[in-house]
């Protein structure tokens, strides 16, 4: 079954629409329409990179391409041009479908260039699914090179098919771009049952929330950082959702309580989901973490395992594989996805305690400690360093560093000399790293612990 069949039997029949800016496009009007102006047949069976600026064009193109193209790679507007050759090669892409100015369209092997134009609706097309399209999402990998994560429509809609259908017709919106996993889930949920108000890149939070209120949004999703920003905008009270969803980062008690206070009538749910593992579960009791019996007494198709100290997930919602010639395996030998999310058990409840792989999540942006350490360690007076995460109520986490100085530098231990060194190291970080990767705090320490194999102990990373 292709995406169009889900829409035709779901939201389109119930009067659902795609809403962007002031335009509302009824899903039923897309039955015979195409934003590709009759060029859809030329894409049949190909591997396509979809790189359009406008989320509405992307929303319609995804609907049209599923079941037609062999593979569809979803690029977000912030994809850097330098990564495109890697993306194209890993996806064995042969068609470029896009208008993203930031991304150079000239890549070997990309034959066609065309721009989906939602204004071109309607043009008569025949909806004919001939393959199970592979959906490919990008997620930031080590050193910032995107990883390509393969899904099927079946894996992407797994959590949606298992959820109870809404009695009323929901109007969804999301702070996420719909080409990221969190946003794609909302796009698919809306298309199966209701309407979707699309976010616009760069739109101030207060303006977006005013639009959301104007369209009567009932269901809204975002990361805890998105929600904190909405709460700080002063415009959060302009709408009264029935359902508030958090995902993509650890939801702490502070943000859950603040949302409960802002939306007393709403269900506030935090979902544990990732591009790789899919949606594992949703917690609706208003408390951070999740009850331990969720693991043991679990029914249904999602297997959870915590016996190794991290949360391992085996589910029909798991991605299928990483794509590319040197791609690592996505699942372990037992078929679980383990992203290294460490758990702590306290009084019958599991709490997330950061990633053992060390990735720090600063307001939804990933930081690999090794990348920051490499910059710090390049300073001639630094012996070694350890970059860690520190809890933060605004962005979830911030980056801090512990630095061991070379002996001669440590010996000149005057506070003024140390402060000078600190400033030099910070200057080097600011010169080469994005702002969210620059340590908020640098502490000089006499030594750092190593494991027996000689690796830095990243206990609380």
């Amino acid at each position, binding site marked *: 079954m292709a995406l169009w069949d889900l829409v035709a039997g779901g939201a389109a029949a119930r009067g659902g629409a795609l809403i962007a800016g002031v335009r509302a496009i009824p899903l039923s009007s897309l039955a015979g329409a195409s934003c590709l102006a009759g060029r859809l047949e030329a894409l049949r069976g190909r591997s396509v990179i979809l790189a359009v600026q406008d989320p509405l064009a992307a929303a319609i193109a995804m609907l049209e391409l599923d079941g037609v193209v062999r593979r569809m790679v979803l690029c977000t507007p912030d994809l850097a041009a330098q990564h495109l050759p890697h993306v194209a090669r890993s996806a064995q892409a042969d068609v470029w479908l896009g208008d993203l100015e930031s991304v150079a369209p000239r890549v070997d092997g990309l034959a066609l260039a065309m721009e989906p134009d939602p204004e071109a609706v309607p043009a008569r097309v025949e909806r004919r699914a001939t393959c199970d399209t592979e959906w490919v999402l990008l997620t930031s990998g080590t050193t910032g090179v995107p990883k390509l994560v393969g899904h099927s429509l079946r894996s992407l809609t797994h959590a949606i098919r298992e959820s109870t259908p809404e009695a009323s017709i929901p109007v969804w919106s999301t702070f996420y771009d719909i080409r990221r996993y969190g946003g794609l889930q909302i796009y698919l949920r809306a298309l199966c049952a209701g309407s979707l108000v699309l976010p616009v890149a760069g739109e101030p939070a207060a303006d977006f929330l005013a639009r959301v209120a104007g369209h009567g949004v009932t269901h809204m999703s975002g990361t805890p950082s998105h929600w904190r920003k909405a709460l*700080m905008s002063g415009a959060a009270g302009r709408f009264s959702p029935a359902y508030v969803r958090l995902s993509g980062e650890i939801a702490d008690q*502070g943000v859950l309580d603040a949302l409960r206070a802002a939306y007393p009538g709403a269900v506030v749910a935090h979902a544990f989901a990732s591009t790789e593992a899919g949606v594992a579960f949703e917690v609706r009791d208003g408390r951070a973490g999740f009850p331990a019996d969720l693991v043991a007494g679990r029914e249904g198709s999602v297997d959870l395992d915590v016996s190794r100290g991290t949360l391992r997930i085996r589910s029909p919602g798991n991605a299928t594989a990483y794509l590319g010639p040197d791609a690592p395996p996505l699942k372990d030998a037992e078929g679980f996805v383990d992203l290294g999310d460490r758990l702590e058990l306290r009084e019958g409840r599991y709490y997330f305690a950061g990633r053992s792989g060390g990735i720090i999540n600063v307001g939804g942006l990933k930081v690999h400690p090794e990348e920051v350490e490499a910059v710090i360690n390049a300073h001639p007076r630094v012996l070694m360093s350890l970059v860690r995460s520190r809890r933060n109520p605004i962005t979830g986490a911030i980056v801090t560093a512990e630095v061991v100085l070379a002996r001669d530098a440590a010996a000149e231990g005057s506070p003024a000399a140390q402060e000078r060194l600190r400033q030099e190291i910070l200057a080097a970080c600011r010169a080469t790293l994005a702002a969210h990767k620059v340590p908020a705090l640098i502490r000089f320490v006499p030594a750092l612990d190593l494991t027996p194999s000689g690796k830095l102990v990243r206990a609380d990373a």
Partner: protein
Amino acid sequence: MNMPVRALIMSVFQEVASEQQRQLATLTDDLKLLKSGLDSLSFALIVARLEDDLGYDPFDTAETFPVTFGDFVKLYEARAAS
């Protein structure tokens, strides 16, 4: 008693704005935080630095998020007084 907290907050706002190369608006009590010229990362750094200086992070028990600069100061002053 409350003045030192307010003065410290103002100096940390200015310090972080300058480090992040952001144009800070004049800090009045009715200034909306999202109109102050600072981004989320700047606020994260401000809260972390204030925690180091004051020994507490009032956000961990706060029920509502501050919207204006005045709300922000009040959040810290309330914690200082408790």
